[in-house]
């Protein structure tokens, strides 16, 4: 074991080292938190699909998403699907993206019209809607102050809030449920459904059933639940990719600026030490490694701190803001490691160049 020179030098000015770690952590947290927010948003976006209990989702031909999409199928198609072999249940739903208003407050919702009034999602309060009633996602109900028994306006019609469901709201939108026939009247689309949620019998797999439905029903696209959810996530992913990229770039630039500044100022303050070590016989390569090790350790510590913080945020935030869910995914952590590595490389460049130029004879200069 040698004297741990890099560690000693790094920790000698603890305040500076901590400031560097904190700065890098803040920059990487920006990247990690943003990715986690979008991942959480995607998870919430498909929460309705994931929890619907459907094995196959049937839509108008060419449609395999709900977000930013319209789908219209004749009601008879839903009945025909229900009679197909291998279909245990076929639940037609009507769907309209709209807003729910209470006084001056409003919220964007996916308004779902189905016969069950929001089943199988369990009620957190109240009861399933009857005619003239609506079930709201709880976070939306809280935000609007529209608890059970109060009234809201949807598509120009007043509805009494009969119940609340939980766990479907995201930071961009929420869900509300009414009876299907009622929504059909509101939309003026009687005899039409948006999607058919199909539950497969035990004798058939979802993919096979989807193929069977498409083969038997012209003008439809049948997707397994997983494929439909994946497609839905991709839509939102495509919409947010540029934002995420921009924020990653911002995080990278801030990270490089902080790490570079800390590393360079630390190196400048240690130039004399490097010159002494070189005079004592330290090879140039090892002197460079010493500088790089300090930058690498600072960035690594900053990354670990950022990771700990994003996990802490993921645990704490839903309790504070139910619509903001952070999902920390392995692939996003891997990407943050990549960003941290790039930050370390960029930040180490100037110190390395400076150390490489050190003249060991400068030890004699005063």
């Amino acid at each position, binding site marked *: 074991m*040698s004297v741990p020179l890099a560690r*000693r030098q790094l920790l000698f000015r603890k305040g500076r080292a901590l400031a560097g770690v904190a700065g890098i952590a803040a920059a990487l947290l920006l990247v990690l938190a943003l990715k986690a927010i979008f991942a959480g948003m995607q998870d919430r976006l498909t929460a309705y699909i994931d929890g619907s209990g459907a094995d196959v989702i049937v839509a108008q031909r060419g449609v395999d998403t709900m977000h930013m999409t319209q789908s219209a199928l004749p009601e008879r198609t839903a009945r025909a699907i229900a009679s197909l072999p291998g279909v245990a249940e076929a639940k037609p739903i009507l769907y309209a993206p709209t807003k729910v208003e209470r006084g001056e407050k409003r919220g964007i919702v996916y308004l779902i019209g189905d016969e069950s009034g929001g089943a199988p999602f369990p009620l957190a309060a109240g009861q399933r809607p009857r005619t003239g009633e609506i079930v709201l996602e709880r976070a939306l109900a809280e935000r609007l102050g529209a608890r059970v028994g109060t009234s809201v306006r949807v598509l120009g019609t007043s509805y009494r809030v009969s119940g609340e469901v939980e766990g479907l709201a995201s930071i961009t939108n929420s869900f509300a449920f009414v009876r299907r026939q009622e929504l059909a009247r509101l939309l003026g689309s009687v005899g039409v459904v948006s999607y058919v949620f199909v539950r497969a019998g035990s004798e058939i797999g979802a993919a096979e059933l989807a193929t069977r439905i498409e083969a038997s029903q012209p003008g439809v696209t049948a997707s397994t639940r997983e494929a439909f959810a994946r497609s839905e996530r991709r839509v939102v992913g495509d919409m947010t990719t540029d934002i995420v990229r921009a924020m990653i770039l911002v995080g990278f630039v801030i990270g490089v600026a902080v790490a570079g500044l800390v590393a360079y100022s630390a190196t400048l303050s240690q130039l004399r030490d490097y010159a002494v070590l070189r005079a*004592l016989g330290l090879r140039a390569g090892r002197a460079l490694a010493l500088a790089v090790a300090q930058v690498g350790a600072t960035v690594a510590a900053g990354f670990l701190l950022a990771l700990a913080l994003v996990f802490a945020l993921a645990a704490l935030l839903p309790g504070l803001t139910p619509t903001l869910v952070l999902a920390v995914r392995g692939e996003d952590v891997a990407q943050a490691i990549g960003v941290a590595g790039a930050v370390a490389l960029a930040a180490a460049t100037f110190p390395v160049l400076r150390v490489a130029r050190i003249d060991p004879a400068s030890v*004699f200069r005063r």
Partner: protein
Amino acid sequence: MQSTLVRIHDLVRTFGEGETRVEAVRGLDLELARGEIVLVMGPSGSGKTTFLSMLGGLLRATSGEIWIDGTDIAALAERELPPFRARTFGFIFQDFNLLAALSARENVEVALNIAGVRGGPARERAETLGNAMGLGNRLDFPVEKLSGGEKQRVAIARAIANRPALILADEPTANLDSHHGAETMRLLRGLAKEEGTTVVIVSHDERLREIADRALWLEDGRFKTLQALVRDPTCGMLVDPAEAPASVELGGERLFFCSAGCRDEFLADNTPIGYSQGARPMGTR
């Protein structure tokens, strides 16, 4: 007669080119015996630091040879110099140049690590040297908390950690009070006479002449015979009579000055500094 450790021949170092060209060292020749203490004195800008840097393998000579224990360091490749420095030289600096982030022990240990000695042997050697330097209970102190004298002892321990053949000391007593300066002189003399280490000291401190076997005067990049130098009666600087820019004849005695300004000041002032002592030859202890 002790064997020769260092042989320097026609050593030249220039900086810059064309009109900005400066000859810092101009054809030095020198031999140093093992266990010898040589004091190099001279005015600022005379080439002392350049000479020391070249001797220590820190600066390439423009031309000439520096043979140390049979190796011409001017001919060593760049990658060969660091390990050669680590095992051949010990450096002692005016400002100590200790690594502030390390303890006293670690400052010694790191020199051993660089030379390839690691782990227990390095720690034991550092501790032995620290104890020998009277740093026993201060070895684990951060060097920032040590006194000037203690710092210099750590620096000396670091310099001798790898049992170098040659110690190069740059103003080793300049930042020390008289007590610690004397202690440093004693340690350097002990190294030379008991360990056989050759010591080259560059300094303005004339007290070091007490321990030096030889004192050399370096001026304008050349060694000059110290005995032939005289002192400027105005400013007190040593001046080579052969190259003095100004002189006056006074009472049958010729006085030499470092500049016309000093001469004029001397002539204008009835009580010039040092004149009462006369301009006496220098160079003997």
